[in-house]
């Protein structure tokens, strides 16, 4: 097929039918994984952040240990760890896709928790005191006064972390889960056109991540004005 010495790119095999049968399935999983890990990660991350700021050593220490451990290990190793450990814990094998969802949620929680911690600390102390002064409990103060402000202040950072998360989902390659990158790879293998498919994969990831980061920038500008 590839004759001569010149570069001979041919994208014609990437018809909509091929894309929809190989790539779309992977894209759906990548997006699913990103969204679940984002929501789960932010919820768990917020809990971890509250534990670390609770002032009680028995809550602070485990949360800090968890966050620091996760942040010191390469994500690929974490993916491999969970893929190895989850079946041992639950006593039966778990699919690569489900394992990836659990892993990313627990892994991203560590990163989101650092963001939420900074967000909570960015809310002036007086807000907390004001909450207590009007008779709110700790829970109410956090839920109604501190967290909404922390969340809004940190929204751009949380979304930027989500873009990184979306890029990192490609690492499920290590356990063979079928994501966006895998979809392109399989298509490339089937048609013996790996160069073209990797190139298109890069363009697709770039377009998605770049447009999302532009959106985050605009959002950031708007939030800055409101404040």
């Amino acid at each position: 097929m590839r004759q001569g010495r010149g570069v001979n790119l041919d994208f014609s095999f990437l018809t909509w039918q091929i894309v929809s049968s190989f790539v779309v399935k992977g894209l759906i999983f990548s997006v699913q994984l990103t969204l679940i890990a984002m929501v789960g990660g932010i919820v768990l991350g917020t809990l971890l952040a509250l534990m670390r700021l609770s002032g009680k050593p028995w809550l602070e220490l485990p949360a800090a240990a968890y966050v620091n451990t996760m942040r010191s290990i390469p994500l690929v190793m974490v993916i491999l760890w969970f893929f190895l450990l989850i079946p041992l814990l639950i006593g039966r094998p778990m699919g690569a896709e489900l394992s990836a969802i659990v892993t990313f949620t627990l892994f991203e929680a560590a990163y989101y928790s650092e963001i939420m911690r900074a967000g909570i600390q960015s809310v002036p102390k007086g807000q907390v005191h004001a909450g207590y002064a009007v008779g709110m409990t700790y829970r109410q103060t956090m839920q109604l006064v501190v967290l909404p402000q922390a969340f809004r202040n940190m929204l751009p950072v949380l979304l930027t972390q989500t873009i990184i998360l979306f890029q990192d989902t490609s690492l499920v390659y290590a356990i063979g889960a079928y994501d966006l990158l895998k979809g392109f790879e399989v298509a490339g293998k089937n048609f013996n056109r790996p160069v073209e498919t990797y190139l298109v994969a890069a363009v697709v990831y770039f377009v998605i991540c770049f447009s999302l980061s532009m959106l985050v920038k605009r959002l950031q500008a708007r939030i800055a004005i409101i404040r």
Partner: protein
Amino acid sequence: MGGWDWQVFCKNTVDGEVMPRCFGSGGDITYLQWMFSAWGWTLSVAALALLVALVVGSLVGIVRTTPSKGLVLFGNAWTELFRNIPLLVQIFLWYHVLPALIPPLKAFPSFILVVLALGFFTSARISEQVRAGIQSLPRGQRYAGLALGLTLPQTYRHVLLPMAFRIVIPPLTSESMNIVKNSSVAFAVSIAELTMFAMQAQEETSRGIEIYLAVTALYFVSAFVINRVAHVIEGRVRVPGIVGSK
């Protein structure tokens, strides 16, 4: 699971015999030796990529603070390009795509291609740090340099960069730790680094937990050493009275 079996590290990688003193003979190696050689690959990939990233990232970061619109545009484009494509995809681009488009690259060993991939990926992040570092300096410093008759390059060399680089040491430290972690992605193109070792040794020996624990510990040690080294550098170069000095 059935208990620990740390002896796995003393096994010969060829026939699985436990070797005396954990050391292979006659050209064979044990898993322990393999692991340390893999650690060497991880550290070499990371160190060389860091070098590439520091040089390229600093240049791109500096260029983004110059008055030249063209250079700023180039620097911004560079940063966005390398920041918005996943590292794994970038490694595949260097490994599968670029050699097909640029034939001389075929002569490059995959180790070099991975170093370039990781280096350029990280250069985008470092350019952000360097740019922010330079922009955090009061504008007056640049004007003062120019007013004294220094050329723009001289102003950068003698006025702006000496301060900016000190300011960016802490973020660069965390980038250096990230680069060790990110070097694990090189497993995808079969570089014999730690993660590759972990996957293969786990498959061959089925002692995944022992092997993963040891590999994870080596990643911890690497990060800790970088952290300490950076701390020493930070102390050495600090300017009394300013930025983060006590």
